[in-house]
């Protein structure tokens, strides 16, 4: 019988092992919660880190999107306004960008942002919203148009960032998402700024 060795030793698996495992699990859970509480990187247990846009009663359902790429279709289906790579470049070159009437927001984490972002883009890592909202929110309140991007493709950080900005009172009509994100921006060899915002370290656009 192939399971004979298992049954032969199964009697050893009783006798307090399960009680010990329950004790270990309970102690581990309590320690994990305590460590999360004191850690500066700790997560809030009650916060919704993945907010989505509430359904807009005024918006018509997206139709005729068979030729649209899947990411764009997904964003439109979820109620977001979408801009193409060309439109994002036009916004970047728009003189209103310098006056912060047009704002570009990078929704990625520190590591990615420091490695390279659209020059002048504000960082808004929505997972650490409290750290960024004091800077980003006043700028967004006065801006006429706000373009938000993350890595591009399957990345959903820009969606959650936009949803959070809408919750914070920014009209959704002013908010746009770039589905191609940083991947498309880099692939087009557009200028990239490294380090903090306005660091001056800019890799120029390819001729």
């Amino acid at each position, binding site marked *: 019988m192939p399971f004979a060795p298992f049954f032969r030793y199964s009697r050893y698996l009783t006798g307090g092992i399960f009680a*010990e495992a329950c004790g270990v699990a309970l102690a581990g859970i309590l320690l994990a919660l305590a*460590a999360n509480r004191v850690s500066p*990187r700790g997560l809030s247990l009650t916060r919704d880190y993945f907010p989505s846009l509430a359904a807009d009663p005024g918006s018509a359902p997206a139709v005729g999107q068979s030729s649209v790429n899947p990411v764009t279709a997904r964003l439109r289906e979820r109620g977001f306004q979408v801009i193409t790579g060309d439109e994002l470049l036009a916004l970047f070159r728009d003189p209103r960008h310098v006056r912060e009437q047009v704002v570009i927001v990078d929704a990625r984490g520190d590591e990615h942002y420091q490695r390279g972002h659209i020059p002048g883009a504000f960082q808004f890592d929505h997972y650490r919203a409290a750290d960024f909202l004091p800077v980003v929110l006043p700028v967004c309140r006065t801006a006429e148009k706000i373009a938000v991007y993350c890595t591009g493709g399957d990345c959903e950080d820009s969606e959650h960032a936009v949803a959070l900005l809408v919750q914070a009172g920014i009209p959704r009509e002013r908010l746009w998402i770039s589905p191609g994100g940083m991947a498309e921006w880099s692939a087009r060899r557009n200028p990239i700024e490294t380090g903090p915002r306005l660091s001056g370290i800019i890799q120029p656009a390819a001729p």
Partner: protein
Amino acid sequence: MTSSVPGSRCRWLDRREIVVVLRVLLGGWFVYMGLEKALHPVDFLKVVHQYEVVRSVPWVNLVAVVLPGLEVFCGVLLVAGVAVRGAALVLLLLLSAFTALVVQRALALHAGGGLTFCAIRFDCGCGGGEVGICRKLTENAILMWVALYILRMHAVRRNDQDHEEK
């Protein structure tokens, strides 16, 4: 001291030194992998969310907070040789659940992608970033075998001690 298990075919596997080495290796592995997740909680939270097993607040956050800490704690217990049976059983149960979820996700990607099964790569949230599915399943099978082996050896030893005391 050498402990032997009745009916065991590989007697060298029953040596206490082998058990200690495997226990420290398994414990060290889980301390490393648990710390990888605990030090990047947002990345792990995103992966937990992607599995779509728990998505509602506070459960998704709770899983992302508790799992890395539990792994580190069990790993430390194994390395220190404290409550080894309990820690090994908890890790065995965690590994079984993780493996089932990883297989489920890989099958979903396989059905939607057109890739061969072993060509599928994704960040399973196991620590260490993106990995090939076949490598991950092999890795998990080895870890589960080691956990089961440690559990069995310590259960046998405890059973023998209980008999001697009687």
